[in-house]
């Protein structure tokens, strides 16, 4: 802050009027800076406070959760009892396992399918490239909700309804447009000259890809995969439609919502939020690659 303001520091030989003007500008700048900080902190509190509330409810005793008026964590007893109660409830542990299985299948499938497409879009100029990109964007914007019902009917006819694999097939369809866009921006961030150089030194195109491009894009691909995982982990609508007995965690919590106690619900919300928070922290540097893409 001082470094920035230093050029505004008035030299001592200036006239009093100019010095006053300088002081006013300095104040204005400090004021607007302070105001920006104020707004930023306000917004940060607005985002963080509800998360803190739910954390403090998940890590206390069920009795405290039911008490009124409620306090938050430093003032109420810390306990793992609520979480333990939630995790031992019917269908929760299988739900978590199902959620993880679905999310892992989804990320593997969508990475395998989208990586070549992303590479093609970033490296080749071909007829229909723009049409492909545009239709991917359009698919991304379409309401995904309409897919769930016909897919459910289709899966029932094919006898693969109520199955984590068929849910993963649907989640892959949801994730694919975004992963293709992210993959293309990840590949585009590796200069083609590197590949060319490798080929000049005697690599084939495939070798250049494996030895030069793959190591460079791996972090970005991992970020895209993590984001796919989070998307699948969070998805509620299709999971409630496509599963009956093999429910994922959100579907299980959703179906017991009206018949469950508050400690259960709050611990459930916490359980759903935590992995998402960890993953978003891991991929924070790639956020713009993912969503910034959409606007271009």
């Amino acid at each position: 802050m001082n470094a920035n303001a230093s050029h505004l520091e008035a030299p001592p030989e200036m006239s009093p009027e100019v010095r006053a003007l300088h002081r006013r500008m300095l104040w204005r700048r400090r004021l607007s800076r302070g105001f920006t900080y104020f707004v930023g902190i306000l917004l940060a509190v607005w985002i963080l406070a509800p998360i803190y509330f739910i954390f403090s409810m998940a890590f206390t005793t069920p009795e405290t959760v039911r008490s009124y008026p409620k306090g938050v964590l430093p003032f109420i007893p810390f306990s793992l009892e609520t979480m333990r109660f939630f995790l031992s409830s019917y269908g929760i542990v299988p739900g978590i396992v199902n959620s993880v299985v679905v999310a892992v299948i989804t990320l593997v499938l969508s990475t395998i399918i989208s990586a070549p497409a992303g590479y093609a879009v970033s490296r080749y100029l071909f007829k229909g490239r723009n049409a492909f990109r545009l239709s991917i964007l359009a698919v991304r914007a379409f309401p995904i909700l309409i897919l769930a019902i016909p897919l459910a009917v289709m899966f029932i006819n094919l006898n693969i309804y109520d199955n984590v694999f068929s849910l993963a097939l649907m989640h892959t369809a949801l994730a694919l447009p975004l992963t293709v866009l992210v993959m293309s921006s990840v590949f585009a961030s590796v200069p083609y000259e590197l590949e060319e150089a490798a080929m000049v030194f005697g690599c084939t195109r495939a070798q250049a890809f494996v030895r030069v491009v793959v190591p460079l894009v791996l972090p970005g691909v991992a970020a895209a995969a993590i984001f796919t995982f989070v998307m699948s982990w969070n998805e509620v609508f299709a999971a409630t439609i496509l599963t009956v007995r093999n429910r994922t965690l959100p579907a299980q919590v959703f179906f017991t919502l009206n018949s469950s106690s508050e400690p259960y619900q709050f611990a459930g919300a916490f359980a759903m939020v935590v992995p998402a928070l960890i993953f978003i922290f891991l991929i924070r540097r790639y956020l713009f690659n993912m969503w910034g893409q959409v606007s271009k």
Partner: protein
Amino acid sequence: MNEDSTPSNSLGRRRRRDWTPYLLILPTVLYLLLFFAWPMFRGLGLAIWNPEALLALRAEATQDSAIAGKLPQGAEVEILERQGNLIPPEEQEEAANLLTEIWFKIKSQDAEGREVIGWVPDRRIRVREKDEEERPLAGTVRPKLGAKADPLTSVYAEPNERSEVVGRLESRVRVDIVEQAVLEVWFLVRGQNKAGETVQGWAQSRYIQVFGDEESGRVDRGNAGQLTAEYIQKMTQDRFFKPALYATLILTLLIIPVQLVLAIVMALVVQARLKGNTIFLYIFAIPLAISDLAAGIIWYAIFTQHGFLNSILQGLGFIDAPITYLSVDTRYWIFIAIWLAEVWRATSLVMIIVVSGLQAISEEVLEAAEVFGASLWERVRYIILPLLRPSLQVALILRTIFALQLFAVVVALSGGDVVTTLANETFRQYSLLRNPHVAASYASFILLLSVGIAFLYLRTIRTQQELEQS
């Protein structure tokens, strides 16, 4: 995509076409065709096509006889006659709800000692011996009960009662079972079609639901499809349709403008080059990873009667007893809670789009404006907003389409009854009322609404640009 298979430039030099990129995008294209385009097409179909609308009646009790008339699904019918017929082997797997008869081909001797070989319905035979696979091998003829009953059992040349009688057996005679056949019952039914004409003909039992008196029934399902407005009517006449539509539209209108403003403010804070602005960015982006269900529960924890809002208000001394927010009588509070939860959860997506739009605006332009004395508001109004228009357009379309699909937040905060949305009705029709067709109507309605709104946005924004250019 490969409409021109002979690409050649103006010099006439032929270039070999490189198929690699097409091979690379092929999996994506195929996958999206199979799991995106096709289900979407099917979804629209489910909403307007009833695959079982009409039942074709046959003149004779066979599949290949002429069609005597058609009855709509649900028509009441009289059952005039019944008979068993062999089920074609290709239909055996798929048929459901059918009434069957089993017939045995038997070998035995009649009272005069003549050998009789022919078909008898299984209700006339008591099976005495079976092989390891539970196939009947031998049995005895059941005695007929009742004073007026014919004491002898007829044996037919073919497995149906209209064929020639080849012999008659006394009761309790031992028979060898050579073969068995499964027959489906056919009914001769009479009912009225949509035009009010009386139609009579044969239909398989799988299509007819028989009432207890065995003489009347209804057409359970048809074997021919028909376009129908039935499901859409059912949707629009559903008592939750209008509340759901209004709630969805009101919430969309409430959520989107606030989100855009808030996202621009967040983006300006992030771009203000303060110390720690990356921390602000990460904090603002956190809700991106939070599911709508979790967000709904989190805000439920705040708004429930013994929740945080009441706790804070009471702690500050504003109220003496907890206020009930989320109840039928205070529906507006549910709307406010859903609105806050959605603004809280989904603004980060808009923020990210706006920030990456802002990064594309050159620093010099903004600095020049500042040097010439433009206030923050003037810079936002005359430089940032016009340059952000493409990003805002995308954010607007994406957010509106997502807002039309509001689901888990609403259920978490209202229980899914008091305030309901179109997406929630889709779920309810499918999962609770077991009506996939009406559910597909709701989903198609959301799709058309989204496409219409996106089209409207694109049009208005384009017209503005054209106006500016002219």
